[in-house]
Structure formats: structure tokens, C-alpha cells
């Protein structure tokens, strides 16, 4: 299960460093006991607002996809980025497949515990769409803004 990180618009294999993980519940129960934790794991049925105050304590937040069909972590990631201003790594864990990495990246994920082997294909899949209609947590300019810019330039 290779670890891939978002680098520009590519996914690049990254060295897996050992993490000291703590679940959100354990952290909330007793933060002092987990002072050495380096990564926070949030289950996808827990509201990310519970950790809003402590986000700066973690350089890595891990969100989960028990199956690729369970899309709750997309919303969690957007909330972390857009509402709570989290700028550290958001890592996707679980059923992380090539055909979903673009959606994940758009929602703010920048690291992926990729469930397949073909990491080059996973990276290529990020480039399958060059446009997006809607703004999200990434830097893609929505189509409507590109239309406006073009109209202004004309």
C-alpha cells in the first residue's frame, strides 16, 4: 500500500515515516497523555468541529474511506480546509482508488495511502479532467470564473 503525496498536480511516492497516531476520541479524553502524537485519526462519523481548537497540534490528519462508496470524508476534508483553516497534511486511508483521487484532491486531501499498485496510473488519473464547474478546497478555478476572466479580457 504505497503512500502517495500531492506534488503540484502529480502524485509522487513518498517515504513512509513512522507515525504516532491518536484517535480523536482519545485525544479529546486526555490530550496530555498523547502529547507526543504526530497524527490525528478521525473516523468518518465524527464531526471535525470537535477538534477545531486543537488543529495546530497536528501536522497530519488521517480521514477514512471504509469503502470507496462511503464519501463522508470528502465533506470532513473540505470543512477542515475551508472552515477551520487547517493547512497541514490531510491523508486518505482505506479504500483509496485511482478513480477517486481527483475528487479527494479537490476536497483538500494531499496524501493518499493508495490501495492499488499502479501509482503512475493514479497520478495520471489526477489529470483526466482539466476543468471544474465548482470551487472546492483546491486551487482549480471554477469554469464560471474562467468565463468571466475571458469576457473581461475580450
Amino acid at each position: 500500500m504505497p503512500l502517495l503525496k500531492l506534488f503540484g498536480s502529480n502524485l509522487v511516492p513518498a517515504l513512509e515515516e513512522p507515525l504516532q497516531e491518536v484517535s480523536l476520541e482519545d485525544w479529546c479524553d486526555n490530550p496530555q497523555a498523547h502529547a507526543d502524537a504526530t497524527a490525528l485519526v478521525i473516523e468518518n462519523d465524527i464531526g471535525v468541529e470537535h477538534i477545531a481548537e486543537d488543529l495546530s497540534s497536528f501536522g497530519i490528519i488521517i480521514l477514512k474511506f471504509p469503502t470507496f462508496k462511503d464519501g463522508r470524508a470528502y465533506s470532513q476534508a473540505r470543512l477542515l480546509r475551508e472552515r477551520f483553516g487547517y493547512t497541514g497534511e490531510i491523508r486518505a486511508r482505506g479504500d483509496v482508488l485511482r478513480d477517486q483521487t481527483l475528487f479527494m484532491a479537490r476536497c483538500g486531501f494531499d496524501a493518499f495511502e493508495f490501495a492499488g499498485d499502479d501509482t503512475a496510473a493514479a497520478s495520471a488519473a489526477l489529470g483526466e479532467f482539466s476543468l471544474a464547474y465548482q470551487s472546492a478546497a483546491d486551487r482549480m478555478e471554477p469554469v464560471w470564473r474562467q468565463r468571466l476572466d475571458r469576457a473581461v479580457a475580450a
Partner: protein
Amino acid sequence: MYRYDEFDARLVGERVAQFRGQVERRLSGELSEEQFKPLRLMNGLYLQLHAYMLRVAVPYGTLSSLQMRKLAHVARKYDKGYGHFTTRQNIQYNWPALVDVPDILDDLADVEMHAIQTSGNCIRNVTSDQFAGAAADEVEDPRIWCEVIRQWSTFHPEFTFLPRKFKIAVTASQNDRAAIRLHDIGLRIHKNDAGETGFEVIVGGGLGRTPYIGHTIREFLPKKHLLSYLEAVLRVYNLEGRRDNLYKARIKILVNAGGVEKFTDLVEAEWAAIRKSEIDLPGEEIDRIRAYFSPPDFEDLPAESAALEQKRTSDGAFARWLRVNTVVHKAPGYAIVNISLKPVGGIPGDISDVQMEAVADLAAQYSQDEIRATHEQNLVLPHVKKDDLYAVWQALTAQELATPNIRLVSDIIACPGLDYCTLANTRSIPIAQRISERFADLEQQEDIGELKIKISGCINACGHHHVGHIGILGVDKKGEEFYQITLGGSGAEDASLGEIVGRGLSSGDAVGAVEKLVDYYRENRQDNERFIDTYRRIGADPFKEALYAAA
């Protein structure tokens, strides 16, 4: 109607290229059927009983003649020469070969069509009033907002893996032709006391195993906030909707489990947090989209047509078709023409390639190049001059597309049922065929008046039986087909859910049961009551008695 610019075209093109790659991976064996399934489902490709089925989106039911000709071409070249219009204004092909599907999608992309989000647990094709832009009773053309929603929801990164599929319908009329109270979200454009137009937002309607009428969670949403409000509803649903049970995963369950007030509070709180962000479109972009839906240049015509009146008097069959299948248009001298896809003994919603081309020709010549698909599985020519109605009727008659039965007893909605569908318990199409044969007499049909029969071949309710004035649900009992009758449903502005009236009937008895119910109604109606009005006035019991009294 909306036309793609280079951005829309590029997105659809990239989607076809992506799917072509996925099909190649499947055909080469790199992907198993299990791995391929979620990918094909994102492209409207189902595996049915006998073959693949491709569902092509007809965004909010609007088609040009060029697009209709392409649909005919696909039917002829890749399928068995016909297509099937669905209750969601889409068209399905029942026999495509997997290897051909990327080419079909390429052909469709040439005319700005696609199969994106016609399946899967995402925001599906947005549906609307089939008379949009032509109806005398609309506040404005709802398709502007349908197109806004189409773009926003296409490949939405956050809402592509929802707990379940998600259907949105938009209307701008008091007369609900889009069944907005039976959608995950229904939007009704209306004017408030200050004269501004905005949306009534209705959430949590739906059919299936557990039918619900939707709840209004906001009486008036200013139009400019539409997308941020939708995003708030979808986010609450994505995070809170149940995922442990397929049958409890629709938003209707979430809304009704915790109560509509609690759900509304969650949405309003979420909306308060995001409404200032860049989700809503700027006015310039809305105006750009609006311009595509500006009304066609209607000629300045007298309200009545002398040519039409002369034919009406001299040709009784034409006069009947005029009464039953045409509707008042907002422009003087014009009419809206319904094209029935329900000939006596036919399969509801089916249309051949030749018929599609005939409809395309008529649209090009007589209807400003526009065609609509309806959620009742018919078609519409929205802008026909009254002077031209006789010629249009003759051409439709020649193609067996002029059955004068719109809203009548033989204008039946039926799901594909066990003839095609892997989920079905029973057949639906043969029941529809036999009912329409039983009531073939046109004069009798017109005398019976508006009567909506809807047939589902299983409890998933794709044939909308819960909202049929008479609903018929197929159930399997130890390998035998039985049909349960429901009465009193409505999918319109007076939405209601039908009531089960008693034990299931055999397929033969089900057709006879409809006849008994109709007879009872005719004996007991008052004044101009429709079937549903009489039912509501006197209640279920007398109808039950009429149905089950010893024969």
C-alpha cells in the same frame, strides 16, 4: 436552449476519454466486473437481465431536433432500433454492447449530450416542467436554474459518493408537472409579497419502499443563493445520512427520522457558515445562462386560427386530439403539443428510430427546433403555431404518435419490470398493454377523464405506483406474480400517497380490477369530478367494496 461553450465541451470530451480507458481496462481483464461496476455506473451503464443498458441524460427534458436525430442514430446503429423514455426525462437503450459504449458516448458528445450522473449515488440529472418556456402559468423559465444546477452538480467532488442517489426537480408553476414534492429536493419558483422571485425549497420527498411527501424547509430562498443553499443541504445529507442500510439511506429517512425542524436547523446553520463563500454564481454568469433561454421570436398572431377552427369542425378525430393532447401556450396563436408514446397495446415510453426522426423533423419545421421529454414518458413539441396543428397532427398520426390519451386512463407510467430489470419481481409492461387494450375506446377514455395509472414491478417503485390515482405494484408470492392495488395517490401539486386497498390480484384480475374501479367511479362521480376527486370525497371503503365484492 443552452449550448455548450468550449468549457462544457471539453469536460464532456474528457469524460468520454476517461471512460474509454476504463472500458479498455475492463475488456483487457485488468478490471474485474466488480471493480468496473462503480465506474460504469458513473456513466449510466447498467447490467440488466439480458444485456447492458445505457441511460443517456436529457438535461431537464429539453432536446433539439439535431439531438433527437442523434438519439435515433444511436438506436439504429448500436441498439435494436428503439429507445425508451423514462420517468426522469432520460432515454435508455436496452441492448448496447460494452465495446460500443465509448463510441456511443462520442457520438452523443458531438451533439452536446452525455450519460454523466444518470446512475450512481450522486446528484442525478435535474428534471423540470416539460412545458417550461411555453406554459401560460409559469413565473419564469425554470430551466435557467436547472442548467445552473447541472453545471454545479457535474463531477461535484464532495457529492459523488453520497449515501444514495439524489434527485432534484425544478418548476416555476403552481401546477406541478415535475412532481417536486416527490424528489429529494423539489424547487418551486414563485413570487413573494414584495414581488421578488425565489425558491420554495422542499426536501425529503420520494417513493421507493418508504414513500414520503417532501417538507418545505424554506418558503422563500432568494435565487442568487440557490447553489450555496443546495450545497448546505447536500453536506448535511452527506455527513448525516444513513449508510448502514441501503433502504434507509435516502434523504427522506434522515429528514423524517429526526424531524423536519432539526433537519432544517442543521441546513440553516451550515448555510450560514458557507453562504458568503464562492459557491453562488455571480450575476454575470447567471445572465449568460439566462440568455440561452430567452423566448424564441414568436410571431405576432391572432389568438385564434381560422384554419384550425375549420378543421376542428370538419374532422372529429382531429378535434378529439386537439382537446386531449394540446395545451394552452403563453404566446397568442401558439399551442403546446403533447406527443403520446402510449399507443393502444404499446410499451409506455418506447419510440423507434423512425419515429424519433419524424419528431425531429416536426420540431425543426414547426416547433422552434425544440422537443421535450416528460416524466410521464411522453414527448412534447412546445411551440407550435395553431395554424400548423393540423399538419402536425397528420404527420404524428402517420407515425402512430397521435393517440389522443394524454392524462387519460391509457396514458400509463410503467417501469421496465421483469422484461428487462434485475430488481423487478414481476412484469409491468404487459399489464400496461392489457389495460390500454381494455380501454382502447377513445370516446370512453375521454368520458372517464383524467386518470393516472402507474405500475411498478417491484417495491422500488420506479413506476411511481404510490402516486397513481390507481397504483399497481407487482409482488412475487412463491414464484407467482401478484398485483397490489393502491388508490388515491397523486404526484401533482395536490401530492398524496395511495392507500393499499386489499389483497393482491393475479395479472388477469388486475386488469379487471381497474375496470371495476373505473365503473364504480363513473356511477358515483358528481359534476366534473375526476376519479381522484370522487375517491377523495367518498373515501376508500366504497371502492374496496366495489373491487372485492363477490363477482
